[in-house]
């Protein structure tokens, strides 16, 4: 298209308040389409499983069983936004799981030293791949395809044809632990509910401040009623979720790790200069370079970070199984990539959010979990997940085309 002759002159008079309110609701619903899809999937499977899906124990399981995929999805969406891909995360997770087994079990190092060393090695693995991608200029697809083979092989070497098992209790807590009964035993764990309330208060304060900030700079904000309605919805959701956890074993350690990661990476992608550079590179690498963005360094750091998160996922997974085995991490890369794309990341780069990737990961998790409860075999689970990925991206493409976007 030569020039967008038509879409320029839209600087009309301000719309009246009612239409503006409606347009806000519609924009929000459009933006959160993926969230609505998650709710739909949850509702569908709660009905199909006659409520088993929403039992406290199962909700707790959902988090713990999908934690490592969600951790990977966080790193993966950043990789994808910058226009790359990482196929090696499953192998890296397996490799780090094996390495941590050597540290924690065979060498009997203190659990925390084992964890720190493992994470460092993960970052090193990322630096190795980042070096080839950023400084040598080999496409990430090739480098990480090689990495997928290299680190799967190294994992087997480290394991020496056997499993490493029986990890120390503190290490195992990464995947299996719960923050519970800290204040003694109650039918509803007060700590869990307390943390939920603190989280809600924090969120509300942050939202109110952000809204006030935008207003003070004269920006358009959503109508107060819709703003409050959204906060109430979120509050109810969080409380219900916390109640479910509190009546079971409390807050899983995995959830705490995830919450911290989502918060940190949410800020990094949304508000940090580094995050801006990632989106700029994904949107137009040349323009970013000519605006002074150190594209190679950013690419390098993206993969260092992915290596670190892959290592963390490997630790959580190993802790959960209490076993470092050769098959660990098989197919993780595909689930993490699917999560990012279902969550709205664009194949060409430049678009994608942490929140989207998490929700995408949860959709996959609920599908896995729901179909398992229903006794659907692994073969159909695979096929259904494939279709969901295809339809999610197709829907996204269709939506953008209808909106006349690029």
């Amino acid at each position, binding site marked *: 298209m030569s020039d967008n002759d038509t879409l320029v002159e839209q600087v009309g008079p301000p719309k009246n308040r009612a239409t503006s309110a409606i347009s806000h609701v519609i924009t929000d619903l459009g933006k959160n389409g993926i969230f609505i899809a998650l709710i739909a999937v949850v509702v569908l499977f709660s009905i199909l499983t006659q409520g088993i899906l929403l039992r406290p124990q199962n909700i707790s399981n959902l988090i713990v069983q999908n934690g490592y995929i969600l951790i990977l999805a966080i790193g993966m969406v950043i990789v994808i936004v910058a226009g790359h891909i990482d196929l090696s995360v499953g192998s890296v997770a397996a490799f780090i799981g094996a390495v941590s087994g050597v540290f924690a079990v065979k060498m009997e190092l203190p659990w925390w030293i084992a964890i720190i060393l493992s994470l460092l090695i993960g970052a090193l693995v990322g630096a190795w791949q980042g070096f080839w991608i950023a400084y040598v200029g080999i496409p990430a697809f090739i480098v990480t395809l090689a990495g997928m083979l290299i680190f799967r092989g190294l994992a087997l070497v480290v394991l020496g044809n056997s499993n490493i098992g029986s990890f120390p209790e503190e290490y195992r807590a990464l995947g299996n632990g719960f923050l519970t009964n800290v204040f003694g035993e109650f039918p509803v764990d007060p700590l869990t509910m307390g943390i939920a309330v603190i989280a809600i208060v924090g969120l509300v304060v942050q939202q109110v401040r952000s809204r006030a900030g935008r207003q003070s700079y004269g920006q358009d904000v959503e109508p107060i009623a819709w703003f409050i309605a959204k906060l109430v919805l979120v509050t109810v959701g969080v409380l219900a979720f916390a109640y479910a956890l509190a009546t079971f074993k409390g807050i899983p350690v995995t959830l705490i790790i995830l919450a911290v990661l989502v918060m940190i990476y949410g800020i990094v992608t949304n508000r940090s200069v580094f995050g801006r*550079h990632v989106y700029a590179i994904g949107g137009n690498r040349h323009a970013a370079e000519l605006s002074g963005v150190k594209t190679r360094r950013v690419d390098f750091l993206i993969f260092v970070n992915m290596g670190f998160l892959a290592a963390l996922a490997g630790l959580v997974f190993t802790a959960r199984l209490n076993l470092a085995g050769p098959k660990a991490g098989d197919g993780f890369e595909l689930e993490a990539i699917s999560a990012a794309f279902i969550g709205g990341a664009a194949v060409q780069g430049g678009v994608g959010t942490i929140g989207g990737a998490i929700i995408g990961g949860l959709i996959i998790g609920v599908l896995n979990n729901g179909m398992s409860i229903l006794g659907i075999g692994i073969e159909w689970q695979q096929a259904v997940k494939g279709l969901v990925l295809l339809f999610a991206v197709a829907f996204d493409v269709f939506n953008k085309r209808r909106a006349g976007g690029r």
Partner: protein
Amino acid sequence: MTTNILEMRSITKTFPGVKALQDVTLEVARGEIHAICGENGAGKSTLMKVLSGVYPHGTYEGDIVFENEVVEFSDIRHSEAKGIVIIHQELALSPYLSIAENIFLNNEVKGAFGLIDWNKTNSEAAKLLARVGLRENPTTKIRDLGVGKQQLVEIAKALSKRVKLLILDEPTAALNDDDSDHLLSLILHLKEQGITSIIISHKLNEIKKISDSVTVIRDGKTIETIAKKDVTEERIIKDMVGRDLEHRYPDHTPHIGEEILRVENWTAHHPQDPSRVMVDNINLNVKRGEIVGLAGLMGAGRTEFAMSLFGKSYGSRISGKVFKDGEEIQTRTVAEAIDNGIAYATEDRKVYGLNLIEDIKRNISMASLGKLSRLGLVNDNEEYKVANEYRKSMNIKAPSVLSKTGKLSGGNQQKVVLSKWIYSNPDVLILDEPTRGIDVGAKYEIYTIINRLASEGKGIIVISSELPELLGICDRIYAISEGRITGELPIEKASPEALIKLMTMEAPR
């Protein structure tokens, strides 16, 4: 029976919230060259998309009469079958395919069993190339041709479709003067063969030279159709902008101060072939408040010079010294160049200048996030405020700073690029083809901005292929040829003739 090959009657096309075309009427006589002028956003492209079936029948109101018959196109193939072919500004050729393959793409010459007959394909292609005056082997790959030759391949492709009405959208926007001249004479030649052409162009001298009539569109409406004998640049401009433009270039009284930038012995080699010298020992300087032009043909080394200077963004084995305010500075990376107060706005804003999927705000802040952030975190609200200030002061026409830059017209995109660099607060701005592909009104605004920056004491280097532009806005002009400075003229002594002589002279070795 009329003599008109095409009549578009009362075409109205609405997009959600916008009336892009309103009751537009266009009559094109058989065998003429008909020019369509209008500012970006006036509706020219939309009109041509209606005509070629990109917007199918039923999505617009009004009638299209082609060869005395009402036509209702459902898509481009439909209109091409009738003999209407449109060549877009951004060429649609596949770089790794040969000329012949491109010409017959989706229209393959088939032999036995429906397989492609390559001998016939290539010989037919050779005939078509001869008709457009392109001496190339049909098996040459498109990527090995320059833009000018690619344009000729597009026309050959149109001829292969038995074109009756050829529509050219900004055909010479990316061509140098030689290639433009060749293309224009080809269009005249095709006219002798009975092919009617519609040419959309911003270059008024071209329009005046070749067209038989000119239709001006403004704000989605036809203003008037001017016959050849009445065509003057002033009249077209007046119709396009709806007001008299006393001068095409704003007045500018230079207040020239101390030297701000001096480049000594700047040399750069080709990035892939380090034995080729692309920029050869260039010496130049810019003073505060001065607008310096860099005139040269495409490929003379203008852009190569600017990009190699700006953080070594082009070339290999770069050597030379840069002085700012008399002190030597380094510009080894883009970040370092920016920190040292140099800004470079690229010639191709869509490929090198903007993140088109991102909004205006984030594009403006891109080169100066450091200023907007604390501890590595960007202050969104401040960013919004800054972007909004630029939207107002630069007159960027967009609903808000949250609009995606990909949806803006060329002129407004260029204003976003300039905003980005002005916000980085440079002392020296290098502007590479700052008004390419943008309309007269927006050009005037860009020139005004350039003047304002100069009067603020910044040094400006303008690279341009349009000599009138350089003569209209610069205080001093360097001519560059084959990577070397071949002359330097103060504006009083500069004339198109003198510059062209310098630009085409064989560089002294």
